[in-house]
């Protein structure tokens, strides 16, 4: 199982998405997930493709081609605005 988290404005765009997804080898990188989402959620994929959007796996920032494994938590992080 892969678990997805979408923060900030990405959360609004991802409201209809199942956040738990069976692990498949064809979804084995965040980039593959982003591309897969484009089929049903083109607006979300467009936002996810902005260069300032970061991705983390198990709470560590990673590159978009980071390998995923069963049980991973993948979070999509728009530019932060705390403080």
């Amino acid at each position, binding site marked *: 199982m892969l678990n997805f988290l979408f*923060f900030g404005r990405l959360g609004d765009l991802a409201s209809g998405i199942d956040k738990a997804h069976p692990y498949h080898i064809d979804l084995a990188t965040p980039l593959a997930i982003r591309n897969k989402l484009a089929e049903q959620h083109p607006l979300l994929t467009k936002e996810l493709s902005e260069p300032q959007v970061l991705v983390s796996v198990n709470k560590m920032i990673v590159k978009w081609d980071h390998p995923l494994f069963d049980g991973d938590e993948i979070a999509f992080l728009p530019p*932060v605005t705390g403080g």
Partner: protein
Amino acid sequence: MSISISVQAKDFDLGAEYDRLRSIGDGLGAIVTFTGLVRDFESRPEEPQYSRKLTTLTLQHYPEMTERLLSDIVEQALTRWSLLGVTVIHRIGSLSPNDQIVLVGVASTHRHDAFQAAEFVMDYLKTRATFWKKAHVDGQEQWLDAKRSDANAAARWDDIKHD
């Protein structure tokens, strides 16, 4: 070394946090505290005419990751300056104008280290810690955009190791 990091919904007491830093004792000569408040308007640097009354600010964060990132920032401050204590408190949830949102307190032997480290921690917090603000403006909700001025402020420290 006294390090305290908290992400919390409840308000904080600046006096109590100051007293805690002040109790560090040995070698203490300076305490700098910064408190960030919720403004009652929302503006956009790229649109100088734009200003709207803000009624509520909602803070979202990524639990565990935020705390770890804040720890990393404090650790970096400790390698750059000579510090005796650092306190970081950041609130989450629903806040109103004039509410306290963030506290950074730094204790050191001499003022220069405390001033610099407090500013560094705030600059890095604003550009690296996983918080997101949603503003309720004119009856509508909108996620706020990151500001270039904050990115520029943080970038200042990139090429300054220690001074």
